[in-house]
């Protein structure tokens, strides 16, 4: 477009210049308009990620301020209406108890909201530990290569050779016993056992992805430049490579959070998790599915929507940063 109307061009048809520039301007304006529209459209996130973010924000707000919100009952006192205990699934979903009551007369909605605290805290802290350890292992393996890489790769292979859930139930149960034998493990509650176990599960996949990315990054020009300027390995790892790994880590963390929360639910379902967990509610009420579907279905729904939300956000981030490993 522009070289056609270049005024310095001696060969340009002078007579029609005005018309041409006018048309060109119009065309250019159209183009800019289209581009702006595109940009604006892109700024509105897709429905999926919008849903995920909204759901998580609402859930987080409700669960943090649950004690102060008038419409959420206490999770530990049974519902009484006109002095009568609403136990044995007496109340279905309705105005008195939004999601009904369970076998002991507790409000299912209140329990679902309160227990989100434990689930989210376990998910977040085990992801954080997993990122820290897995990221460090992956960076070291991918950057130094050679023997370090071999050792770490074998370690990762070992962790991946045991199915995650099998490893989890085995470790949580054994930690029950082991902490009795070692006094310095006295601080370890069931919650920390689960966090520790889940973070071990998170280490291997993270280390793998970070290692692959680090291996690609270390060949890049800016690393070479830093090295020829005399930067130490530590400086290159932290100042050159780590910032470039952040998008990957954030993406994998979002998807991984969903997986870990599902794993936490599974552990509680099998009787190896917390009793204050959606998984435990599902297991406790599932035999009464016929009589009182609400006591099982609503915790299921919460678990499903939470995992789905993290997956949606993770998927969006993976597309945004073009990370293929996290996509599937």
């Amino acid at each position, binding site marked *: 477009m522009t070289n056609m109307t270049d005024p310095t061009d001696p060969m340009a048809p002078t007579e029609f210049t005005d018309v041409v520039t006018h048309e060109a301007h119009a065309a250019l304006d159209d183009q800019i308009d289209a581009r702006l529209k595109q940009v604006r459209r892109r700024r509105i996130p897709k429905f999926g990620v919008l849903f995920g973010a909204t759901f998580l924000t609402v859930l987080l707000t409700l669960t943090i301020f649950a004690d102060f919100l008038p419409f959420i009952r206490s999770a530990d006192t049974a519902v009484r209406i006109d002095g009568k205990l609403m136990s044995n699934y007496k109340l279905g979903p309705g105005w008195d108890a939004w999601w009904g009551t369970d076998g002991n007369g507790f409000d299912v909605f209140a329990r679902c909201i309160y227990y989100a605290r434990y689930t989210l805290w376990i998910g977040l802290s085990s992801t954080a530990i997993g990122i820290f350890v897995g990221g460090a292992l992956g960076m070291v393996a991918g950057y130094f290569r050679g023997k370090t890489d071999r050792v770490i790769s074998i370690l990762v292979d*070992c962790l991946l*050779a045991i199915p995650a859930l099998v490893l989890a139930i085995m470790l949580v149960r054994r930690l029950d016993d082991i902490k009795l034998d070692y006094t310095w493990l006295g601080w370890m509650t069931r919650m920390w056992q689960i966090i520790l176990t889940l973070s071990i599960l998170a280490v291997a996949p993270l280390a793998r992805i970070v290692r692959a990315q680090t291996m690609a990054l270390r060949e890049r020009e800016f690393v070479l430049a830093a090295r020829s300027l005399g930067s130490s390995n530590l400086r290159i790892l932290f100042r050159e490579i780590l910032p470039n790994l952040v998008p990957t880590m954030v993406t994998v963390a979002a998807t991984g959070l969903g997986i870990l929360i599902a794993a936490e639910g599974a552990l509680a379902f099998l*009787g190896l998790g917390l009793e204050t967990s959606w998984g435990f509610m599902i297991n406790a009420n599932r035999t009464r599915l016929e009589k009182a*579907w609400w006591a099982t*279905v609503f915790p299921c729904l919460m678990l*499903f929507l939470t*995992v789905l939300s993290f997956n949606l956000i993770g998927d969006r981030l993976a597309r945004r940063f073009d990370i293929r490993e996290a996509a599937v």
Partner: protein
Amino acid sequence: MRYFLQRFLQLLLVFVLVTFSVLVVMRMGSPDAQTLAIKLAGRPLTPAESQSLIDTYSLDRNFFFQYLNWLKNLVFHFDLGFSPQNGLPVAELLKPRVWTTILLGLYANVFGLLIAIPLAVNQAYRRDRLFDKAGNLATFVAVGIPGIVLGVFLKLIFVVNLEWFPSIGDKIYPWDDLSLHFQNFFLPALTLTIPVAAIYTRLLRADMVMTLQSDFITLASAKGVPPGRVVWKHGLRNSLFSLVTAVGTQLGALIGAAVLVESLFDLDGLGSQLVVSVLSSDLFTVQSFVAIIVLIVVVVNLIVDLSYALIDPRIRQARALG
């Protein structure tokens, strides 16, 4: 050949390291051999009993010797150990339950592939059209849905509302009674199949989209090869790489899912037995269980590695050169 040997040794190392770590985790935290024997048995023992246990499994030596003893029994006598809590050798405990889990895994993989391949090929062929978008949405949800949630929802629909299937599972094998087997295994198998099929579909679709953009596909179409043949023969064969890898890597997830599904549908299989053994601290059984699972995972991964070469001659060549 060198590559496979290297890979074999690597996987052997993984097996040994994992089983050794499992043994240490199972047996750590006992000050002396007597306590360890009591813990392994899960009940108080007479001195003679505990002495025989200590002698059989060399519990008075360090973990390394205990491991060698365990490995020796496993390799030379196929002895998986004894489950004192059930009063049975571990092998006897596992044998009646093996087929439940194998059948479930088989169904999940076979039906997963039967759903995934046509779906993914059609999605890739009609890329970005409505069919593809609907398929993407469905598989995205199916990949992420937690196993328990899917199982409970299926149970709610098919058992509670439609009353098509019994609410408590019974392990009846196809060679006993086919229709009863179908009634008992359909829902657990479906719960396992849906995520597996979704993952396979996503992987195959992504590969297939790439393949269909290659020059040789354009050439084949230009040459006048019918579209069905181009897609199913030329396209599919060159897109199987990730799918074959996934069959290997998904195995672990599948075993984990089987643990859940068997417990949820009350099917008596290896998974539900594992949960029972873990909960009752039956350390011998758990240790042997995990060893078998790791062995299966390692062997399947080796087979997957070998099968790359069968699918794609380029890999064979590249590996031969490297």
